[in-house]
């Protein structure tokens, strides 16, 4: 479809659990920024709420929520971390 892009969204921790999968393929309007991916995720994921401190990575590099996605991108939503 013209003006559409395909992206892979990688999910971790409680988002992965809520989605029942560690990645979701989305078809989005060209020009969609990383920070808008959330609104396209399944309801079960959106019910968790989006923590303010969520960060984003495109193709395994940190990015900002305003970064525009391109066709074939892998975008990761990085919830507030708790390692250590």
């Amino acid at each position, binding site marked *: 479809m013209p003006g559409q892009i395909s992206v892979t969204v990688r999910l*971790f921790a409680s988002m992965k659990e809520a989605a029942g999968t560690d990645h979701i393929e989305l078809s989005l309007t060209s020009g969609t920024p990383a920070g808008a991916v959330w609104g396209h995720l399944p309801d079960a994921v959106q019910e968790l709420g989006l923590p303010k401190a969520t960060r984003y990575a495109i193709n395994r590099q940190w990015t900002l929520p305003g970064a525009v996605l391109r066709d074939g991108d892998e975008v990761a939503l990085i919830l507030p*971390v708790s390692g250590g």
Partner: protein
Amino acid sequence: MRALTSDPLDPGAALAAVGAPEHGGAAMFVGTTRREADRREVTIIEYEAHADLARQEIDRICGEARSRHGAAVFAQHRLGSVGIGEPSVVVAASAPHRPEAFQACRYLIDEIKRRVPIWKRIHYADGGCEWIDGTTRRPAGRPVRTS
């Protein structure tokens, strides 16, 4: 150095990795799983990572500690299930003098906890479990049943 591993961590290997005859000492921090969280008994803790990004970020933090403090450094985080009292993270830093070794060591663990995409899921003795990732909105004290 493998920054992430599913095997038990070896603090002795961390010390050996930063040992240098020009250095007067090494500081190390070993993070271990606690028996209690939120006043509930814990059975195991499970760690999950965005592995590629986590490795990159640990490497970057190590580079920062090296250049800021002139230290030799080591950092490793465990993934998967970790039993109570077992190490989940080990960092070490050596330097010619001890203030720098302590500073570099503290920098490593603080920045790893703050920046690296690793999450823990606490499994409780009462059968509940929860991810610690900022989404937890349950009322205090109510177990989250996930299965």
